[in-house]
């Protein structure tokens, strides 16, 4: 127990996390690639044609994982922001900062693939529907977080301001998630629910889950890469960074 606790604190320092992250990155890339290939293979070669939407439904294998990640990354980002705010740990704020652009990217992809799915199925690229609008607000929350942090020179203050924005924005996540239940929307209901059996073919479900795993591994890999850059930048005046780069 005490040993585990010690290790936890050890890796909470930027200095020891930097090399650890460097070692983990290739593994997450490998997992992302494997899950990506398997997921797309299932989605595009194994999963059957949809009875209602023909082949057009195959956008689901990118759309749903991207939308899940857009919400999940926000929660993780807000979690690190809160930890940084409460415990004043330096690494937490850096993690939140590192996650934001990837979250914004997945939110954009969820909106983009949604538009490319909406056009043939609903006849419109965009509608001001509760699900779509709340997802667009999520995109603005990410962009606002990035812009706010970029506008403040002192990293400690930038972390604090960003954390408050991130935490206030958390309220939007359940709104997105339950929007299809709370309002009468054009968007279809949840594809996968914890309380009901999934309403789709097994292979479709597996393709979607494996693609989501691929996106998840990708997000970890790219966020770890970004956090390493942030660590170097913020710790540039320390002796360990000097030694690290002298090698």
């Amino acid at each position, binding site marked *: 127990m005490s040993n585990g606790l010690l290790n936890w604190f050890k890796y909470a320092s930027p200095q020891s996390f930097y090399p650890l992250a460097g070692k983990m990155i290739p593994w997450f890339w490998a997992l992302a690639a494997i899950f990506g290939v398997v997921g797309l293979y299932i989605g595009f070669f194994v999963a059957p044609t949809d009875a209602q939407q*023909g082949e057009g439904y195959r956008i689901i294998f990118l*759309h749903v994982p991207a939308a899940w990640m857009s919400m999940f990354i926000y929660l993780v980002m807000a979690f690190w922001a809160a930890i940084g705010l409460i415990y004043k740990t330096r690494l937490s704020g850096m993690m939140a900062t590192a996650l934001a652009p990837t979250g914004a990217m997945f939110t954009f*992809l969820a909106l983009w693939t949604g538009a490319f799915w909406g056009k043939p199925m609903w006849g419109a690229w965009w509608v001001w529907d509760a699900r779509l609008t709340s997802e667009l607000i999520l995109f603005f929350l990410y962009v606002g977080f990035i812009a706010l942090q970029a506008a403040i020179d002192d990293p400690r203050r930038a972390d604090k301001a960003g954390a408050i924005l991130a935490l206030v924005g958390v309220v939007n996540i359940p709104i997105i998630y339950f929007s299809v239940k709370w309002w009468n929307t054009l968007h279809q209901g949840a594809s996968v629910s914890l309380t009901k059996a999934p309403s789709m073919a097994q292979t479709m479900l597996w393709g979607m889950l494996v693609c989501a795993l691929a996106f998840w591994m990708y997000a970890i890999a790219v966020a770890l890469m970004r956090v390493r850059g942030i660590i170097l930048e913020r710790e540039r005046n320390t002796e360990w960074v000097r030694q690290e780069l002298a090698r």
Partner: protein
Amino acid sequence: MMVWNSFSDFLAMGGYGLYVWGSVGATALLMLAEPIIVARRNSALKTQLQRQFNAERADRGERKARRSQA
């Protein structure tokens, strides 16, 4: 097992080609571009910091030499 009869069949996506490939294309583009941008920025930062540290070291060395001459 296989759902496609031919490659052109695969490309056509049952008439939804534009929408399916428009989604796949944007996803692939962004998910390839993001890590490349991050990797480039990291290596540019490393080069910049290394240059700065070397300059500082050289500066310190010069001052030391001048002091010992005086």
